[in-house]
């Protein structure tokens, strides 16, 4: 059977151009109308050490990678030994003929050997060994029947800065790769055929989608300390900071980053802080300051597995409890847990409105898998034009001009939200403080005011829950035997798992929480009460969302499928574990 849903893995040492080759191939796939999903697996080092880039390509939109490799491209022998067992029946390996690989042994393992003189082609046609990657792409095109013109287009774009000669050399190498495969009669049982008249796609990862949401959402200030896997948000915005007039600052520490953002926000900026779990831990005291002073604050916490340095370049969902509860005392916050490119974009765009409407911290909890996985999407879901800016109860210049009497920064109101003036207007000279304070912002220890102020701030969470917290996404048949619950990046694999479970004779549905706090208890309770058997699927060791659900709904999810090996869920893994539960 010829399949049009296949997984290709490029493997080699760090520094061998694995990532850029993979990215180029993804762009070519997307332009041809196919839907690629790319994922890089790398270690915390700059050069050396095995790493790989995995690309799943399908004719229809996909939300996850999957297990099993159809085609392995091995630049090193280690790639072959590392991945041999993952190759599916009928799959094969493209490798340089100079590698110490025994084709007969591969055949005995049910794997097709595709030796290609990648290095020789690179040297003879291109004059440089680094073009072996390009030769490999040519070989893939030859094997899969993909249209070379898309690859040629990418080569022309990517190497344009290096001059016509380099472009031409790479084109020659790619063509020679195709020809070699064709002339040796290599064939495979998968096919990458362009989709005719397909719409233009965007190729984007979760961090980039969040960044686009943020700039469309009015972000004009970023202070962040580099921390994997959050850094690419800071880098992308910084790269465009001059043309977009966004102040970006990489300061001396995470403590500086969050406090600078609070200072900037206090005077009216839409300020963003990006970090991961370790950096977030350092910011917790300031989080309370933002809560107490009612300063809007937007944080993107792109998590990785802890504790401490943990697995710095890998993925995990172990920071949910941390971002929901990290605090001195109680104050309202909003936590968004996007699971798709669309949701990551929306989180970036919504955060600044939510932060200003509720004058409190808004945290987007993402993870390495969502952050770094590259997907092709319909540009319509990155609807930057459609983002509306809502500054909530911010007093306008005209309102300030006509302000009479003493301005009360922390005025008691029905919604808990007080009209906010930015410092700088004659009619609203005011102070605020991390100490408990009066409506005016003066320090107080009066027990009655204290109670009222706590209630006022807490009220904002209720108002937010009523007006702005998105309901969980429910998918699949209502009369399912198994109901999965998930949040964040696990959604993609869970979504595909419920589509595959019927093949195993299991009717399944799911509930995906894209907004986690204030907790949408009513909807989740409804889902749980209507479900036969429930399974929480999440990427941490203790079932954090499972506990949160119990805390907020009084219901106990029946089973849990946890994964905390630093690698993302696959649909295959979820299906297998769900079968065990039944």
């Amino acid at each position: 059977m010829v399949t049009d849903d296949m997984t290709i893995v490029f493997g080699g040492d760090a520094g061998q151009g694995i990532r850029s080759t993979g990215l180029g191939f993804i762009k070519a796939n997307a332009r041809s109308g196919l839907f690629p999903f790319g994922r890089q697996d790398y270690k915390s080092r700059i050069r050396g050490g095995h790493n790989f880039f995995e690309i799943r390509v399908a004719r229809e939109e996909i939300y996850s990678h999957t297990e099993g490799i159809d085609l392995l491209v091995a630049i090193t022998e280690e790639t072959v030994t590392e991945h041999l067992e993952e190759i599916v029946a009928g799959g094969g390996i493209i490798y340089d003929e100079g590698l110490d690989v025994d084709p007969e042994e591969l055949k005995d393992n049910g794997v097709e050997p595709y030796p290609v003189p990648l290095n020789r082609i690179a040297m003879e046609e291109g004059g440089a060994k680094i073009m072996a990657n390009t030769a490999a792409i040519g070989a893939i095109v030859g094997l899969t029947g993909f249209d070379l013109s898309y690859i040629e287009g990418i080569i022309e774009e990517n190497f344009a800065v290096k001059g016509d000669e380099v472009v031409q050399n790479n084109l020659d190498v790619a063509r020679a790769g195709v020809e070699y495969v064709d002339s040796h009669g290599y064939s495979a049982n998968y096919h990458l055929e362009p989709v005719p008249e397909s719409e233009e796609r965007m190729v984007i990862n979760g961090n980039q989608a969040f960044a686009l949401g943020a700039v469309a959402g009015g972000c004009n200030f970023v202070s962040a300390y580099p921390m994997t896997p959050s850094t690419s948000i800071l880098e992308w915005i910084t790269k465009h900071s001059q043309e977009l007039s966004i102040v970006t600052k990489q300061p001396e520490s995470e403590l500086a980053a969050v406090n600078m953002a609070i200072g900037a926000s206090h005077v009216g900026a839409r300020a963003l802080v990006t970090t991961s779990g370790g950096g977030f831990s350092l910011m917790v005291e300031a989080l309370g300051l933002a809560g107490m002073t009612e300063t809007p604050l937007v944080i993107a916490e792109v998590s990785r597995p802890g504790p401490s340095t943990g697995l710095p370049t890998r993925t995990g969902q172990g920071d949910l409890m941390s971002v929901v509860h990290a605090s001195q005392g109680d104050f309202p916050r909003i936590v968004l847990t996007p699971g798709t490119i669309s949701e990551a974009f929306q989180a970036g765009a919504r955060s600044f409105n939510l932060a200003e409407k509720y004058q409190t911290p808004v945290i987007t909890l993402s993870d390495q898998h969502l952050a770094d996985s590259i997907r092709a999407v319909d540009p319509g879901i990155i609807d930057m034009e459609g983002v509306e800016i809502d500054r909530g109860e911010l007093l306008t210049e005209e309102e300030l001009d006509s302000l009479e009497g003493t301005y009360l920064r922390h005025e008691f109101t029905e919604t808990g939200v007080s009209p906010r003036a930015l410092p700088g207007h004659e009619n609203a000279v005011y102070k605020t403080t991390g100490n408990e304070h009066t409506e005016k912002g003066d320090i107080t220890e009066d027990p009655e005011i204290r109670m009222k102020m706590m209630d006022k701030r807490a009220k904002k969470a209720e108002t937010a829950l009523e007006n702005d917290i998105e309901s969980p996404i429910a998918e699949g048949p209502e009369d399912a035997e198994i109901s999965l619950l998930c949040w964040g990046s696990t959604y993609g694999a869970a979504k595909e798992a419920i589509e595959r479970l019927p093949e195993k004779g299991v009717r399944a549905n799911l509930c995906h929480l894209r907004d986690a706090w204030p907790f949408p208890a009513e909807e989740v309770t409804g889902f749980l009460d209507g479900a036969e058997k429930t399974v929480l699927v999440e990427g941490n060791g203790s079932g954090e969302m499972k506990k949160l659900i119990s805390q907020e709904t009084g219901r106990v999810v029946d089973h849990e499928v946890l994964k905390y090996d630093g690698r993302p869920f696959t649909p295959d893994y979820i299906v297998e574990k769900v079968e065990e539960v039944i």
Partner: protein
Amino acid sequence: MSEDVTIADYQYPTQPTWCPGCGDFAILQGLQMAFADLGLKPHESLVVSGIGCGSKLPHYTNVNGFHSIHGRPVAVATGAKLANPDLNVVVTAGDGDSYGIGANHFLHACRRNIGITHIVEDNRVYGLTKGQYSPTSYKGFVTKTSPEGAIEPPLEPLPTALTSGATFLGRAFSGDVKHMKEVIARAMEHEGYSLVDVLQPCVTFNPGRSYDFYNERIYKLGDDYDPTDKQVARKKAEEWGERIPLGVIYERNMPTYEEQVPALEDGPIVKRSLDMEERSGVSYGEIKKDFT
């Protein structure tokens, strides 16, 4: 000097909780006088403080105030200045805030030359927590947490700031408000980061650094002193013992951080549109093209 602003504009009804005789009263007064002298209206400044006795200062004067957390006022002030360079941003914080828990921000503010005025209420003891040694306490200082005497020598604020790249170093004494006011005013006029280390007795917890102690040692730098000579300034910054100099010890004009930020070339971001296309002239379509 402006005719319309007086110290009365800075009066605020809240009574300070400071001990009688505390140097913070004089610092508050000196700051108010400096504001008035420069003709600054209360809404034109933002005073950011940390935690400690002196950090309550913004609560006792009519000015925009942000009373933050321990160690972080310089970072909060830096963010505020970057977002709205039109504001006169002042930090009032103690020696623990500035040179202890927040020392990292202090060092980087110096080399960054961010346009804030950092007034350190340097009483050389932790007062609000009722008497523990601080980063500027003298070696041998007996406190509740150093019953045998502090082991470490004190951090030297002015030489540290100079080495870290500060472009304005001032020292004042809370026993001489008029002189302090002049130093603070010059600090606020300085473009870039300015440090004013104020020698301030804590009459309750640091009797060894009393008004008498300082009065016997301080002297004011004369009109013939040239604060632009870094070598001379270094010597003056290090002078501490029998004689302690007061005044503007070092001043050099260097580009400020904020004036070198490309995104601020067309004015404070808080005064510009939040709509990306409107603000930058770059269309969403152009941005999205990066990803096709």
